[in-house]
Structure formats: C-alpha cells, structure tokens
C-alpha cells in the first residue's frame, strides 16, 4: 500500500502538470460506480445459463467433428441401401440400372441379361422413387464392394433431378441437400427442413450406427429389382386423369424451371465422381406419354425440357458419356395407353420394348467401342454368399 506522505513520481508528475488532480468526491463516485458496474456484470454473468453456453460450445465442436471427420459425405439412404444389399446378395452385378422411379419401372434387367448373356443377378435395377444422381452416388460410394469393379451403369436422369425450381421438396433428397450451402437450402427447401438439415451429418451417423438392424426382404429380387406397372394405372388416360397428372408434373418436375443452377452443377460433379470411382456411366432419359408433350406445349416448360435434353447431350459429349434419349418412336406399334402406366412411367409392355431397345443401343455402343461390354467385367466377379444375410 502506498504511503500518502511520501514523495513519489506521481507527485512529481502532478507538480509538473502532467496529470491533474481529481477531487476526492469524484474518485469515490467513480470507484463506487465501478463497484456497482462490477456487481452488475457479476450478477448478469451469474444469470447466464452457463450449462447452455457450454452446450453451445460442445455442440459446435461435436458437429464440426462429425461433419468433417466422422461422416464427411452423405451415406446411402436406408431404403436404397437395403435394396442394394438385397439385390447383391449372391452376385456382384456388372450392369446396373440406377436412378429414380422411372429407372425402376422402365428397364428390365432380365432383358438386358439375356441380350448380353449374363447370369441372373449380374444385371440389377436399383432404381427407387426420387433417387437422383446424388443418391445413386452416395449408395455406390458406400457399397461399391457389392458391385463388380468398373461396372456399366445406366443412370436414368429426369428433368426434376437438375431443376432448382422444383416446388415439391420430396424431389430434392438429403444427398443433394448435403452439398448445398445454407442460403441455397433456405431458398430451395421449406424452412423446417432447411433448419433440420444442419444436422444431416448427425442423422447420417445415427443411421450408420443403426444400419445393422435392417433385414433385407426378398420381394425386390424377383425381377432383378424391376417393378412392373400395369397399363393405364388406376385412372387410365381420361381427360381428367391426364390433367391431374399434368398438375402434379407441373409442381413435382417443373415448378419454375431453373436448370442452370446448383443442382445442374451438382449433377455434373456427381457424374465426374462416379467416373472417378470407375463406373462407366450411360445416361438415360426415357420416353414420356404423348399427352405429356401436348400438355406442356406452348408453355415455358416445353422449352425448358428441350433445353434440358440439349444440355444433357452436350454434357454427355463433354464427359464422354453416352446419352440414350428416347421419344415415343421407341414404342412404335404399341398403343400409348397400353405402353404407359402414367404420363411419365411405362407399363410392363412399354418397359419390355424400351429395354430391348436399350440393349440394342448398348450393343451398338460396344461395337463402336464407346463403352466396354459388361460381360468382360463379369469375369471372376461372382462373390461368396453375402455376409449381410448371415
């Protein structure tokens, strides 16, 4: 403690006028105010939810750890994973049909297998509703050991898979959301889903920890994963049924068409990554019912769809990936109402015809040396019985 009677550098400075003396009353008030401020801060700090603040810190750290180290990439969606595991129980397929519901109901693996003289199980259809390229990539990345090395993949791509303007967010799967930034999520998804998507890595981790619970069923094995649909579906192609379907397509496929944005770029990256993983990709855009074209004629959707096809063709050329685009001609001789299940999906009859055409076109591509024949990939691919089914 300083002795007030002693002469110090402070006094010298005071004498020299370098500092000014503050009246005692003022300093006391200052000290008191400091004390009050200190107490106020202390009280405020003591009111802070310390546990909550720690939690905020821990949540951030754990989230960063999970999203960057533990699960840095999306995992296969549970149903798709189960489907792949079921379809690859005995043989590692070398010819894969993948993509959304259109892949699932458009291509018969057995027709392709017969054409290329492949054994049962070597050709599979892993298509599932709304499974775009990102979902296929996630599944392949995680389960690539279940497939033959360098398989040939026919990847069905529908317009909505690359459309940022789609209005129904069911058509934007988590695997796509994963690589969006937060602003894109807010722009493309309902608020609730956009917020919840912050914790996609945690959800994926939980899924990874609980995957073992799944017991694969036998239903999808029947036709190599192909799901046959009846002609005309439940409502047929009456004027009302067509108009209702067109309304659904307007929301689910088109919305406000925007095919130059995030999802297109993501699509390109997904294709590149599939290629880097050793997959020979052939892109497929199947036919749609004539009423589909009539319904969207003279609307911006028609132009958007045409542009999509042009972009797809150009991309195929750029990435050296064959593109199989089909219009109604592929089904010539068939009554459209018999060949289609609805405006965008084929019936079994239509799928059989399309599959034959795809097989012929693949053969043509092989003959021209543009793709490797799947039969060559098959050599030595038959695996031991799956450990999964044990």
């Amino acid at each position: 403690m300083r002795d007030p009677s002693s002469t110090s550098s402070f006094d010298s400075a005071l004498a020299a006028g370098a500092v000014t003396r503050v009246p005692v009353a003022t300093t006391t008030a200052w000290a008191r105010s400091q004390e009050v401020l200190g107490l106020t801060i202390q009280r405020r700090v003591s009111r802070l939810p310390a546990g909550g603040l720690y939690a905020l810190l821990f949540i951030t750290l754990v989230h960063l750890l999970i999203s960057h180290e533990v699960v840095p990439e999306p995992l296969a969606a549970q149903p798709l994973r189960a489907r792949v595991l079921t379809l690859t129980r005995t043989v590692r397929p070398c010819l894969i049909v993948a993509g959304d519901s259109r892949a699932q109901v458009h291509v018969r693996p057995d027709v392709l297998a017969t054409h290329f003289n492949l054994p049962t199980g070597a050709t599979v259809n892993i298509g599932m509703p709304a499974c775009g390229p990102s979902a296929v990539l996630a599944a392949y990345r995680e389960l690539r050991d279940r497939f033959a090395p360098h398989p040939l993949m026919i990847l069905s791509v529908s317009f909505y898979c690359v459309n940022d303007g789609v209005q129904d967010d069911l058509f934007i799967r988590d695997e796509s959301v994963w690589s969006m930034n937060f602003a894109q999520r807010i722009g493309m998804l309902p608020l609730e889903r956009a917020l919840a998507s912050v914790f996609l890595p945690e959800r994926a981790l939980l899924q990874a920890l609980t995957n073992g619970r799944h017991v694969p069923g036998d239903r999808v094995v029947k036709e190599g994963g192909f799901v046959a649909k009846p002609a005309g579906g439940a409502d047929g192609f009456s004027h009302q049924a067509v108009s209702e379907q067109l309304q659904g397509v307007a929301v689910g496929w088109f919305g406000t068409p925007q095919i130059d944005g995030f999802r297109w770029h993501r699509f390109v990256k997904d294709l590149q990554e599939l290629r880097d993983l050793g997959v020979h990709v052939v892109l497929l855009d199947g036919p749609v019912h004539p009423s589909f074209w009539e319904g969207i004629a003279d609307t911006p959707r028609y132009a958007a769809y045409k542009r999509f096809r042009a972009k797809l063709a150009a991309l195929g050329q750029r990435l050296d990936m064959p593109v199989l685009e089909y219009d109604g001609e592929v089904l010539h001789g068939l009554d459209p109402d018999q060949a289609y299940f609805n405006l965008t999906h084929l019936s079994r009859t239509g799928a059989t015809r399309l599959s034959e055409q795809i097989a012929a076109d693949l053969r043509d591509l092989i003959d021209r040396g543009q793709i490797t024949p799947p039969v060559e990939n098959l050599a030595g691919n038959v695996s031991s019985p799956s450990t999964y089914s044990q």
Partner: protein
Amino acid sequence: MLFNSFPFAVFFLLVLAAYVLSRRRLHIQNVVLLVASYTFYGWWDWRFLLLILASTLIDYVCGRLLDRCRGDTACLDATPDAPPPATSARTRRAILVASVCANLGILGFFKYYDFFAASCAEVLQAIGLPLQPRLLHVILPVGISFYTFQTLSYTIDIYRGHLRAHRNLIDFAVFVSFFPQLVAGPIVRARDFLPQIARPRVWHWERVYEGCYLILWGLFKKVVIADNVAVVADRLFSGDTPTNGAAVLVAAYAFAVQIYCDFSGYSDIARGTARILGFDIALNFDLPYFSASPSEFWRRWHISLSSWLRDYLYVPLGGNKRGPRRTLINLMLTMLLGGLWHGAAWTFVIWGLYQGLLLIAYRVLTPSWHRTTAALGAPSVHTLRAAGIVLFFHLVCFGWLIFRADSVSQFVAMIDGLVGPWHVRGTGVTTLVVCALPLLIMQLAQIGSGDLEVVLQLPAPVRGLTYTAMFLGLAACLGAQIERPFIYFQF
C-alpha cells in the same frame, strides 16, 4: 400441432413474444394465452373449439349459480363482498347434477357411444335378440377426457365449498384451455391453477432455464427414446413377428418404456412450457417404475389422474371409511372407471380390472406378509424393496400387454407365446436396450440425488455435456422420422 413439430416451435415463440410484450397488463396477457390456446386446439379441427367453448360456458355458469346459492357451506376463500348465501341444498345439487351430466354427456357421446352401442348389440345378439345399432363413428376430440375432468373438478369443488366461483370468464376459459396441458394433461385443479392465472406473473430467468431444460428432456424422452422403441413395440404387437416367449417379453418391456417416455415426455414439455410462461403445473410422474407396490405405483404414475380419481370418485364412494369389503369394492370400481377413461375398448376395461385386482391383493395380503416376514426374520429393508420393485415392474409390464393389445384375442395369443419357444434374435432387444439406457442412467441419478431435476444441480460443464447429448440425439432423430403423435392424445 404436436409438441415435437416445427409449427409448435414457431407457435410457441410467437406466443412468448406476445406474452412478454403484454407483461405489464395482466388481462391482456391472459387474452393472449386464451387466443393461443384456442389456436392450438383449433389447429386439429376448428369444430373442436365449439365443444371446449360449450364445456367452458356450462361450468362457468354452473359455478356461478352454485356460488350464489352456496348455503351454509363455509368457503375456504370467502370474501367479504360475496353475495348473500341462499340455502337451497336441493337447487345446488340440481346445478351440480346438470354440470356433471352435461360434461359426462359430451364425453360419453364422443368417446363411448359407439363402444357401448356395439357392445350392447353383441350381448343382445348372443341371447338371440339381433339388433343393428346405429353407429355414429364420431371423431374423438383430442384432450376431451382431460379438460372434462378438469372442469368437473371445478364445479364439484365449488359445490363442496372448497372453492369460490371465478368471476372472470377469460381467466376461467384460460384455466380450461391452457395450451401446454390441454390435450394430454396433467389435469390441473382449479384451486391450484386459477389463482396463478389471476395474479401477475413475475419473469425469472431461472424459471426460463428450468423450463427449457424440462422441454429438452421431455423432447428427448419422446423423440429419441419413445419413438425409437415404438418401432420395436409396434412390430411385435402388429403380429408380423411370430409370437414367441422372448418376443412377448421384449414387447412388454418396449411398450413399458414407450408409454412412460411418451407420456412423461409430454408432461415434462407441458410443465416446461408452463414454467417459461410463469405457471407451475404439478408433477405427473415420479419415477413410477421404481414402485414396490400397486398403491405406490398409483401415487407415482399419472399422478394428476390418480389423485383426481381418488378425490372425486374413490372418496365419494366411501373410500376406506365403510369397512374392508366396501373399500375393496370402491377400489375396484375406481380402477375399472380409470381403465375405461383411457379408451372405449374392452382391453382398457380388463386393464382397469387387473389394476384393481392388484390393489385389492396388495391390501389383503400386506398384513399377513408383514407377519410372515417378522416371524421368519426378514431380509434387509433394501433387499425387500429391490425385490418388490423388480416384481412389481413385471406385474406392470403384464398389465401393459393387456393395455396395448389390439384385442382380447391378441392378448391371449401373446400369453400363449410366453410358454412357447424363446428366440431373442429379431425381437429388437438391442434397440430397446440402447434406447432405454439413457433413461435408466437418468433415473438412477434422480433416485441417488433425490432430485428429479438433478441435471440442473450438476457443474456447468457436465450440465453442458448432458444438454449436448440430448440436443444431438434430438437433432439426429427429429428430421429422420415421421412425427408420431403422443399416445395419450387418443385418450
């Protein structure tokens, strides 16, 4: 609007903002609560609002009329400016009967009409009198059993002279429809809750933190534990899995965990939400699976309902004051009606019967049990209690088999399965164990500390870790699955 949904989160934040902004004016704050409660209830179906309005008005008017002619009954909170008492006991009784009939009439019509009509037809058909009853297939309004009991207790309390009628209709309407506990309880008593509505609320941050913790823990129990265990229970009860002894046992355990976490989770969210708004709602679950006897279980399980049944059914029937035999009959009647309260199905009635039998057996056997243990030199109190807890937990689980079974025949088939072959594989036991583990850890900590909110007493970093685990569990589960409604909504 479910507590575990995004719309509720937005709704609650909006209500909270309006509530805080109107904090200087109590009546406006109560109007905010009323509008919020009606919005919350009308979210399911706006037509339900007509029912709750009718129930509110009936009991408000009956309460006021009872109060006017309250006779010589002394009121606990009588005020000097109260209206002069009239002395018509008969009128008072008539008013009470009108209120009870109106409330139970609404409840009976919406909840039990089809059940009783179909059951009567079956009985008549069995004795050779075929009858085709006209079934109405009325939708059961959510929460009707809860708010009906709540309003019933109000008029009965006024009739008994335990309470004065509330004059402010808005306050009374808030009491009936208070959204945190409207659709699945706890059933609050007017004596406890109306004074809280009538007095200004004071904002305490500590209460807000406690409320947030209760909401977090309630959501964790519901979304992470109950909903994941529900997958196991649903599969086993759906009949897809061949019934075997292990499957039945796992089904019973799984449903025990599911129903507890589902219902107590809802109660915790309700209490937490109410606490943030400045209200205290009574505890509804006090570690019920650690009960060593049926009477203890009913003091810990759905406390608001069991205490309601005790005060407004068991005691008026005579309770234990009219001799041992009458006590047993009263117990059985109370539990039968308690079972029926849960739903219009014979499985609920049988469940009530089973619970009644347990209570009766406990009451009858306890004295001789004490004599025997005293004579033989009983093991330590702790050992006895532990054995009692394990035994009684299994008796409760057996009861849940009856409660959850879709029909009496399914229950019988499951009991048959218990004596059949036992295969643990494929029953989902791993999921059950993993999901139940956090619950067990928490409950052991609660028992060890003697504090249900033990987490709030932990050092801040440990508390933070606990919150982190709960939050991340929730975040991983919330978006991944379909929102399941709370089980008790159907009651």
